[in-house]
């Protein structure tokens, strides 16, 4: 099975507190640690496990700048065979639809049975996978948390409310967006990264993909993020202050008063 997994480089929220820059038009990006979007890592692991079972290959693709290459390399160190960097100055400022159009063009250049995305990006809108499916006119399922390959089709589970799971049989090719917890993504060590350090990763721009850049970049974007801000909130919590001992004393009083101790 030929599988394409779309991966995005995002600021790692486990490593950084996200702050807004002084102009308010972006988050503070100096010193940010970036990593692959959490959901995408599960998607790549799933693709590798499928190929281990039924054969084929995994290609990881990203739309981004030169720095995005590092996430491709990381996912290749996990076991993806091929990487594809979709990069072009004209892609700058693309909205979700633009990103989906670029990825769709890349899908059409290949011959994929299955396209996986993450359910959402930390700085995204849970939209790219569903848009790609509609552009490709193939079936889509979001929030997928099991995949089983059955002759020529897939049996999948979709996570729904309350931890229940809706089971479907899906024809291929199809696009699935992957929910966290579907598997346990393997650990990538320094050695794994070193092994793929010198692998050539092909780059493709608008003309390679055969798309009109003016239809996908910032000028075509109909959805625009204007700024970042921290909303004016209500009072919020009463923050307990003082030495640890004093804080614990106050907390215990609250627990007693509110029925938190039995």
């Amino acid at each position, binding site marked *: 099975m030929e599988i394409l997994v779309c991966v995005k480089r995002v600021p790692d929220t486990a490593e950084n507190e996200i702050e807004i820059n002084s102009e308010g038009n972006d988050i503070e990006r100096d010193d940010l640690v970036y990593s692959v979007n959490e959901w995408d890592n599960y998607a790549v692991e799933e693709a590798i496990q499928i190929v281990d079972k039924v054969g084929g290959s995994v290609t990881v693709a990203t739309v981004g700048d030169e720095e995005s290459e590092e996430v491709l390399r990381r996912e290749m160190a996990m076991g993806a065979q091929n990487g594809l960097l979709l990069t072009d100055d004209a892609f700058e400022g693309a909205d979700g639809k633009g990103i989906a159009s670029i990825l769709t063009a890349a899908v059409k250049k290949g011959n994929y049975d299955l396209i996986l995305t993450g359910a959402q990006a930390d700085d995204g809108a849970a939209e790219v996978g569903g848009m790609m499916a509609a552009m490709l006119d193939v079936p889509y399922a979001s929030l997928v948390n099991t995949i089983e390959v059955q002759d020529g089709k897939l049996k999948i589970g979709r996570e729904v409310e309350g931890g229940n799971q809706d089971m479907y049989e899906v024809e291929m090719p199809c696009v699935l967006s992957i929910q966290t917890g579907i598997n346990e993504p393997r650990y990538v060590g320094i050695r794994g990264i070193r092994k793929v350090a010198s692998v050539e990763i092909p780059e493709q721009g608008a003309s390679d993909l055969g798309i009109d850049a003016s239809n996908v970049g910032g000028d075509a974007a109909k959805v625009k*993020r204007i700024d970042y801000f921290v909303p004016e909130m209500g009072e919020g919590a009463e923050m307990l202050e003082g030495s640890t001992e004093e804080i614990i004393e106050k907390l215990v009083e609250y627990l007693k008063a509110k029925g938190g101790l039995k």
Partner: protein
Amino acid sequence: MADIFAYIEHNQGVVDDTALELLAAAKKIFPDAPVTAIVMGSGGDVDKVANEMTASYNAVWKVDNAAFSFPDAEAARKALVNILPGDCVLLLPHAHFGMDLSPGLSIKLDSVFLSDVVDSEGLDGNTLKVIRQEFSGQVSTHVHADISNGAVINVRPGVFQPDESKAGGGDVVDKSGDIGDVSVKRKYLETVQAEAGEVDITKSEVLVSVGRGVEEEDNIEMMFDLAEAMGADVSCSRPIVDAKWLEKARQVGTSGQTVKPKVYMALGISGSFQHMGGVKGNPFIIAINKNPKAPIFQMADVGVEANILEFVPELTEKIKEL
């Protein structure tokens, strides 16, 4: 002015809370526009829900077809493309069904998609101004969208106060004959119910809830010690279940359990809406988090800025001494 629609989710005839939240959202964005409810389903449920919605909405479109005996987004998308005017605005709840349906629907309608909208600053010509969040609510953004070709808008559940004014008085229009071919290449098989766990956290009065701030599996034990000293049960956020450190039945949130304790103690939990969506009944919330800007402090009654790995053992000791 484009026609405004709201998609009504229901479960076998029981209308979802979001039905009147969407009406409130629609009225905030388009103050004077009539709003049409769309009710899809199969059999008696559809009529029951459609009739109920006439009180609040200016019109109700119903679609009654066996394909919708189960909420199937793939089939619903095909039907909606056939019945909706191309430049309409459609509002849906940003939950498991809307996430499945909406991005693709916006492409098929050639309109814009706005995801997980938490507020609106209204319309300026063809520019719709909304507010979204990124990084699990750590920062907000103003987003402007050109809706001259229409829009599909997923609205976050629970943020708009339901519009209970019952100022609708619309008629039910049967659109079942206009949906066209709704056959799909994704066949629904069954729904598998979540497994019950060793504890039923939905019945717990006091919950010690563990989040990603616990950092390592070995530290979970520490949280059980605290819970034991308090006489509480242990629940958790999703990443703890994803990592297989605790069983799924302990997960609080929209894709886990809905809990109604008296006291909810969130330890190393950031406070995402999918997590807090499972905390109901207005409990007394205590948040302990090392990041003073964590969104959880906006929702909690009492907060402590601390490293839980240092703070919790001391708290446990103190409680044991009582």
